[in-house]
């Protein structure tokens, strides 16, 4: 598997065109990852869709890198049907400012995927047409895929039983 960008001419052209919107390029396991910034994200995605012909946003997800800072990464998996190429775009987000522009205007498929990230990680997408919970039940409090939520069996906290569950917890309270 090629591990440098030099052996992938298609991708070096893309990186050159994007210029300083790309702050880092990683090639590993035969996959190319471009790291961009929150401010240049929509510009980069629009270019990748229209000029570089990555027509499909296959997947969008979030990774919690706790305790590193910046803590979150939003990961976009792009697929070009016409050029048979895959590309991953990553944006790092700070724990203190979990907002990012929504990709819905560029890729329609981002709609539910972003709702899922909002639901599970609490990241807010600016300009999203319908940002509300998608997987967790109505009335659920918190964001379950954050690292501070333990991987243990716990009664699901709804708004109507949260206080009681909290009262049963073994930790000290005032």
């Amino acid at each position, binding site marked *: 598997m090629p591990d440098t960008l030099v052996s992938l001419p298609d991708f070096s052209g893309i990186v050159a065109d994007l210029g300083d919107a790309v702050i880092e390029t990683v090639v590993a396991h035969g*996959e190319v990852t471009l790291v961009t910034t929150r401010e240049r994200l929509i510009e980069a995605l629009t270019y990748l869709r229209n000029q570089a012909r990555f027509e499909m946003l296959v997947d969008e997800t979030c990774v919690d890198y706790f305790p590193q800072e910046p803590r979150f990464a939003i990961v976009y998996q792009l697929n070009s049907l016409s050029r048979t190429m895959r590309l991953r775009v990553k944006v790092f987000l700070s724990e203190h400012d979990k907002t990012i522009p929504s990709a819905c205007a560029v890729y329609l498929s981002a709609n539910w995927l972003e709702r899922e990230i909002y639901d599970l990680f609490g990241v807010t997408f600016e300009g999203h047409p319908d940002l509300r919970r998608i997987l967790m039940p109505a009335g659920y409090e918190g964001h379950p895929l954050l690292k501070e939520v333990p991987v243990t069996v716990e009664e699901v906290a709804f708004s109507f039983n949260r206080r009681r569950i909290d009262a049963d917890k073994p930790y000290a309270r005032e």
Partner: protein
Amino acid sequence: MPANNPTLHEAPESVLTESNAQLDITLEQLKKLVTPRAFTGETMLLNMGPQHPSTHGVLRLLLELDGETIVSCIPDIGFLHTGIEKTHEGKTYSKGIPLTDRIDYLAPLSNNLAYVGCVEKLLDLEVPLRAQYIRVILLELTRMNSHLVWLGTHALDIGAMSVFLYCMREREMILDVYELVAGARMMTSYFRVGGLWRDIPPGFTDLVQKILDVFPERLLEYEKLLKDNPMWKERTVGIGVIGKEDAIAYGMTGPSLRGSGVNYDVRKAYPYSSYDQFEFSVPVGSNGDVYDRYRCRMEEFHQSLKIIEQAMKRLPAGPVMVDNRKIAPPPKHEIAYSMESLIHHFKLWTEGFSVPEGEAYFAVESGKGEFGCYISANGGPKPRRVHFRAPSLCNLQALPRMSRGCLIADMVAIVGSIDIVLGEVDR
């Protein structure tokens, strides 16, 4: 049960004292989703599901109807959310495999491969050719299994009862193969990181050969029942149409995308598990309606049989697991006399193997579409993040677009035609 369990009369009171966060959807949000006519009473809001036999699980649809015509459709999912991705964070890489069976419970082996393939990619493992071939045989059987359940239920939804019974009969033959190789009929967990759990047992060839012999004529039976049936065509031709560009924009994959005339199949575009060594074609539709999606899947049966036949004929000899003892468990008999094997066994079953820090995305073509797995590894024996790219989720997202302007009875046909499994949508 703790003594202070909430009683029924306790709950509503606390609901009233908290914010309105417990509401599923606020009026402001609803206004954005339906047309203003819903507020004047000109159109009607109708709830469909989650307990509805034709929603293939627990899918809830909020429909805005003008008479019997669908004006807008708001899918509501999450009823089957089991937190599989979170559970993965607390399990070693090998212990994660049985969890993947439960994502798309009609195609357990496709899920297994997406997951183990992703871990293998992170470890840079080369799987023995025999294991790759056996994987291909089982994956194609899984595709047929998935399509059989789809065909049966889809036809049942539209009103053709006997197809369902036939499909379940043939599905038994495939489940028998699962049972033979893995010991389980549904939740197989047969693939391991680096190969297979064990080599195929004797009798496998006969069972698969029987499927190869029987299926072509059974497929003819299905075709006779539906293909040119005027009632079937009335319900499917020109219904739930979605164009090429829209299908791509919504991220649709699999037969649902190919029904719209886009030739994209992961097996051809990014071959895995030696799919590039087999000859097969990818059936593509043109109109993007329910009937074309049906035709694509029916043609895929023939292609799957073709691949299985080639793989059985050319099945190479050799091991079915990598020989790296840091990943592959040692054979049981070695543990009795080799100290090193015992240590490896102990380490693998207590701590598990470590995967170097990094991230990878690996996709397979499951019966539903591109089933992908994204793993972010932190260098330890447990993953930092495992995410599954579920084809059903993206295909379902296009449902409002497909169903606009259709009759409410067509909704049942359209939901059936995109072949969703709610276990995969909600994960």
